């Protein structure tokens, strides 16, 4: 379709996208209720065609409910906070592919023809460096020389299942905009005239910013071997070389844990745990503003599921089903369904995990981020760097990362066991009974070994 740029069409597309996104979020709430029910040996909402009309009923209720604004809140921030939470969530979704883009992106590999073709690494000789600069300059000149009309024609001639295609800083954009969601949480808790909301929001913000570091570090391995932050190029790399989860399973596990924390989902649910802090930072919010917080959380879930599937599980690629060069309607539709199916399966996994793992206490949560996940991700990245640079077994060195990941994990387990049990003392002196000293680690009181 080679249409000129039309404001009307653009606005219609915006409305359609936002509307469908909100619809997906509303039905995800139904999916969550149903899955939670099935796990708990009960049926979820089953009136009105097996619960299909339930989200609509919820929406109508929220629209018509009374908006209570407590006295003493900071009006400006109270109104802005849910808007920020939702805005950043939607913005992060803009660069995430939910289908294929045509034409296929080209992997930038400056070492084509040399012995180490296969890893997209920077040039190391002067000749290669000159070639890189030349290629970059050509590329920049080509894109700068296009007029606005030509760019629009180019945009309309290609089919992009992406809201903002060809963004070269893909993952960086997602993470940085997603970090801004912390503002929504902090302002929400601060502006409510409520001590407990404030505590909840502070805990939530501490959790969110702590888990952003393992989130970024675990993805560095994927970015390193692909050579680009562009999500479409990462999918292209996985089509040519195999899914990233086969090479870097530890990075996948770390990323999965971090995104659970980023979405405030169980087991990292403490800031909004209903049993502990009433509602945490969204206690004082009623109908629509509360709904906006919920929408923001579910949109984060959708975004991170897409990113997870794109980074580690090949995006829209399924080995014998989707062909990378097929841009017909059937091909594009198939790719769309593949990636959406993967995304939905990960969301079901999100919901199952909610009912599987116990909630982490706040200090356990922070321990996990700073003392466990940060060292492990750094260690994994270092090992990957060494493998990529030295390539001990030649071409297929990257496959070594998989068993090395397992060794790193087990090593971390051993270190954890040693740290927890403390140094063992065989002979100690007894200084008194009935004094109530405990056997906690780090206590300098020495107790006689009774041999039991």
């Amino acid at each position, binding site marked *: 379709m080679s249409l000129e740029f039309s404001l009307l069409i653009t606005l219609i597309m915006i409305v359609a996208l936002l509307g469908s996104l909100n619809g997906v979020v509303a039905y995800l709430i139904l999916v969550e209720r149903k*899955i939670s*029910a*099935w*796990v*708990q*040996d*009960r*049926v979820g909402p*089953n009136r009105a065609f097996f619960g299909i009309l339930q989200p609509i009923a919820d929406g109508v209720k929220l629209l018509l409910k009374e908006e209570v604004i407590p006295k003493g809140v900071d009006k400006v921030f109270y109104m802005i906070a849910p808007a920020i939470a939702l805005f950043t969530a939607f913005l992060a979704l803009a660069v995430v592919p939910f289908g294929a883009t045509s034409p296929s992106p080209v992997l930038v590999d400056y070492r084509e023809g040399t012995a180490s073709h296969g890893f997209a690494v920077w040039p190391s000789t002067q000749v290669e460096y000159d070639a890189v600069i030349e290629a970059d300059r050509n590329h920049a000149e080509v894109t700068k020389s296009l007029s606005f009309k030509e760019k629009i024609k180019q945009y309309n001639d290609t089919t992009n299942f992406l809201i903002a295609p060809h963004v070269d800083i893909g993952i960086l954009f997602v993470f940085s905009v997603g970090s801004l969601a912390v503002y929504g949480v902090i302002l929400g808790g601060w502006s409510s005239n409520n001590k407990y909301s404030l505590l909840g929001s502070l805990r939530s913000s501490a959790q969110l910013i702590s888990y952003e570091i393992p989130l970024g570090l675990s993805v560095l391995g994927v970015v390193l071997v692909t050579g680009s932050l562009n999500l479409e190029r990462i999918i292209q790399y996985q089509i040519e070389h195999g899914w990233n989860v086969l090479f870097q399973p530890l990075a996948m*596990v770390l990323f999965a844990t971090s995104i659970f924390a980023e979405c405030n989902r169980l087991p990292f649910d403490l800031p909004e745990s209903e049993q502990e802090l009433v509602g945490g930072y969204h206690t004082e919010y009623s109908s629509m503003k509360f709904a906006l917080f919920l929408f923001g959380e579910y949109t984060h879930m959708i975004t991170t599921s897409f990113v997870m599937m794109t980074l580690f599980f090949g995006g829209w690629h399924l080995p014998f089903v989707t062909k990378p060069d097929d841009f017909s309607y059937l091909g594009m539709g198939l790719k769309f369904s593949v990636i959406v199916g993967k995304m939905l399966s990960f969301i079901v996994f999100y919901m*199952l*995990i909610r*009912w*599987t*793992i116990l909630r982490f206490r706040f200090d356990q949560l922070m321990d996990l981020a700073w003392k466990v996940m940060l060292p492990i991700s750094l260690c994994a990245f270092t090992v990957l760097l060494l493998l990529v640079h030295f390539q001990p077994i030649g071409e297929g060195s990257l496959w070594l990362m998989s068993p090395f990941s397992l060794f790193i*994990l*087990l090593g*971390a*387990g*051993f270190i*954890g*066991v040693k740290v*927890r*049990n403390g140094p063992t003392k065989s002979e100690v002196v*007894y200084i008194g*009974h*009935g004094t109530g000293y405990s*056997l906690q680690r780090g206590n300098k009181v020495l107790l*006689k070994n*009774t041999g*039991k």
Partner: protein
Amino acid sequence: MKADEITWVKPPKFGVMDHIYLPAILSGLATTLTHMGQTLLGTGENTTQQFPEQRPKLADNYRGVHRLNRDEEGRVKCVACYMCSTACPAHCIDIVAAPSPWPDREKYPEVFVIDELRCIYCGMCEQACPVDAIELTTLYDLVGLSREEMIFNKEKLLSVFDQTVAMGTDPIRTNKGRLGVASEPAQSGITDSSSMQS
């Protein structure tokens, strides 16, 4: 306490597999998925009762709406002794006694009103009644459109009796099917005041 009387209990050791969390998570996921599969296939213990298509099975002594019993001749059994009214913790029973038109009892209730909304359905009136006149049935889905509608007078309470007898759901249950002693007519040979002599 002496040193050898104390037993030191240590928490179980956390092994390597426990520290990396993943094996425990996987076994937990197996449990979760098993439950989900069972519910979907219908083989598990589904604890949800689809009300109003499926009604609950109530115990026989379930305390629902009150009724005033009739005796075999269809007369109201209550003798207006005010025991239920006195026993009621919520003070929801109002009785006005009148001389009874029948020979075998002194009084009968001319007005007998229970406010079903004030009632706490404790069953003390049922326990207090000496002639087994008032009982709590198993009717639980009682609704009304106004507060006045829920103040049951004698006719309404008797009609509850007629309805439940027709439905067959609530037989006379007090004292395992037999009525209390005070319901039976006086035996011959025993005068008003009980005496030691037979």
